[in-house]
């Protein structure tokens, strides 16, 4: 590459910084002044809205109050963590629900697009394929409120279409779907699959498009049928994407789509629906119990962070794909 450009433009190759400490630091800054200035708003954004809250995690170990602030509040060590694990009656239920909803998502929402991508790939008519894809992407763009609104109104025991159809076709009595704890996970994951199955195929289809076509030719010559080709070539070609998405999934394992839960749950379904983040929201935002809620949130973040590091390490050990 050619870096033959005038001095002072901010484009010349850096002369390897000598160990002149501050002087060389200042001269680097000056040389690329405009470039650093451009980054300044972004850097400030990260410091204020991403790193200041991380520093603010200190209040998990304090009895924080708005009046006394972060520097004036008393340090109380692990008090809030102990309170959560030993004295919060539904702590176990929160952890169990968070884990269970994720397991369900991993079992149903994760494989669904993989299967669909293989089926898309087998479609012969390009126009029809494109049409189905377009239709299947659409729900991805609907807001959580809209999805939850459709779910709530369709499932309503008095006016909802689902209960009407159940009674018209099978003579069933109306079911209070959103008032019964045993239905919650099905509704949550079912609407999640509906919304994400089409969109989720995009990365897999990209991976399939990258597969060397000669592999299929060779397989055909060796007498492999279409199912065998799909299994041994198409599926294997998607594995790297699967691993990446799986790691990302595990990393956000504890961060369930709590906004949708917030819209769909109510005290009747807390038993299966209440997760750590909805609890943090109620205790932190609604009851202004800042320190306790932060402690609970911190427990979840640390757990998620550990999971993603472990998942990445495993991926690096057993396959050639990993996040970093």
């Amino acid at each position, binding site marked *: *590459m050619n870096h033959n450009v*005038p001095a002072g433009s*901010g*484009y010349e*190759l850096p002369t390897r910084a000598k160990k002149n400490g501050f002087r060389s630091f200042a001269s*680097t800054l000056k040389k*690329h002044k405009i*470039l*650093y200035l*451009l980054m300044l*708003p*972004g850097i400030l954004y*990260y410091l204020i*809205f*991403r790193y*200041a*809250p*991380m*520093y*603010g*995690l200190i*209040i998990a170990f304090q009895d924080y109050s*708005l009046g006394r602030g972060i520097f004036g509040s008393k340090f109380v060590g692990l008090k809030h963590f102990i309170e959560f694990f030993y004295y919060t009656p539904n702590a176990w239920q929160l952890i169990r629900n968070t884990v269970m909803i994720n397991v369900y998502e991993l079992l149903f929402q994760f494989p669904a697009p993989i299967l669909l991508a293989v*089926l898309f790939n087998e*479609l012969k008519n390009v126009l*029809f394929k494109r049409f189905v894809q377009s*239709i*299947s992407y*659409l729900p991805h*763009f609907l*807001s959580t*409120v*809209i999805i*939850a*609104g459709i779910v*709530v*109104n369709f499932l309503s025991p008095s*006016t909802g*279409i689902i209960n*009407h159809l159940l009674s018209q076709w099978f003579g069933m009595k109306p079911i209070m779907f959103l008032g019964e704890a045993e239905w919650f996970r099905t509704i949550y994951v079912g609407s999640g699959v*509906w919304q994400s199955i089409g969109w989720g195929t*995009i*990365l897999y289809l*990209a991976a399939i498009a990258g597969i060397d076509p000669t592999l299929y030719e060779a397989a055909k010559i060796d007498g492999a*049928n279409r*199912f065998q080709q799909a299994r041994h070539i198409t599926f294997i070609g998607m594995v790297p994407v699967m691993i990446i998405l799986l790691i990302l999934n595990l990393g956000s394992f504890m961060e369930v789509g709590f906004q949708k839960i917030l*819209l*769909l749950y*109510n005290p009747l379904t807390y038993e299966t629906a209440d997760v750590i*983040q909805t609890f*943090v*929201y109620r205790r*932190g*935002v609604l009851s202004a119990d*800042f320190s306790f809620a*932060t402690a609970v*949130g*911190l427990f979840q*973040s640390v757990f998620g*962070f550990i999971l993603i590091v472990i998942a990445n390490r495993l991926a690096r050990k057993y396959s050639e794909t990993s996040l970093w």
Partner: protein
Amino acid sequence: MKGEMSIGSRLFDICNVLLMLVLIALMMYPLVYVFSASISSNAAVSSGQVVLWPKSITWAAYEKLFKNPNLWISYWNTIRYTVVQTVLTLLATSAMAYPLAKHWLPGRRLILLMAGFTMLFNGGLIPTFLVVNQLGMINTMWAIVIPTLINTWYLFIMRTFFAALPEEVEEAAIIDGCSSFQVLTRIVLPLSLPVMVTIGLFTAVNQWNSFFDALIYLNDRQLYPLQIMLRSIIIADASLEGAQSEFDTTVLVTQKYALTIIAILPILFVYPFLQKYFVQGTMIGGVKG
């Protein structure tokens, strides 16, 4: 080709097409039903007579909604928040991504690491809330626009794009006497239109659809965006603890469906663009990021 195909293979093709038709039906049915219900009479909808097509067609639900001043206020608020955030996000993200794409810039790695780490770990809900509170942004538009200004994922997508632009063009411009800033505005940005449109659309749709930030940062009814109004009208009876359900909760079912359509309509209009650019964007981000 067709002659060589086995019966099993042909059978599979037929099943596959049938499956796809089922998929289309499953994807479209809720939306078609919502529309049909919104233009049917309330009695027909609540008694279950509307299954697919509208019955006793009437626009009464829409007329009633259009008379509600809250709808217009919240619609305007959503447009305002979306436009302002999209513009600011594009400015801040491109300004940060451009220098980060210069592989020879000292300190680049450190800043990338700083941004990347926030994808793995963050301060969480309450500390972020307290920072926004401390800055006096509660109950202002800025609480909605600024805390989600830069998305690290988009930042990396843009950086990847900028890094792939031919450096020779920029060098030529500098030899012709352009400053770094002029290079960015006159050469890099026009060349980057596809990525700008992609990130712009990503941001706009996210903001259009978001409700949670408004829920925690706003408690002035005049500032509520559309999604908050939707929540309190459409989902009123599901979420019993709704702190913001002071809107009229005795709304007819048809009005709930009509409101759903009113909120989806803009998304449907831009959907053809969305699809094209989003697929592109997801690929850049997913494959190279």
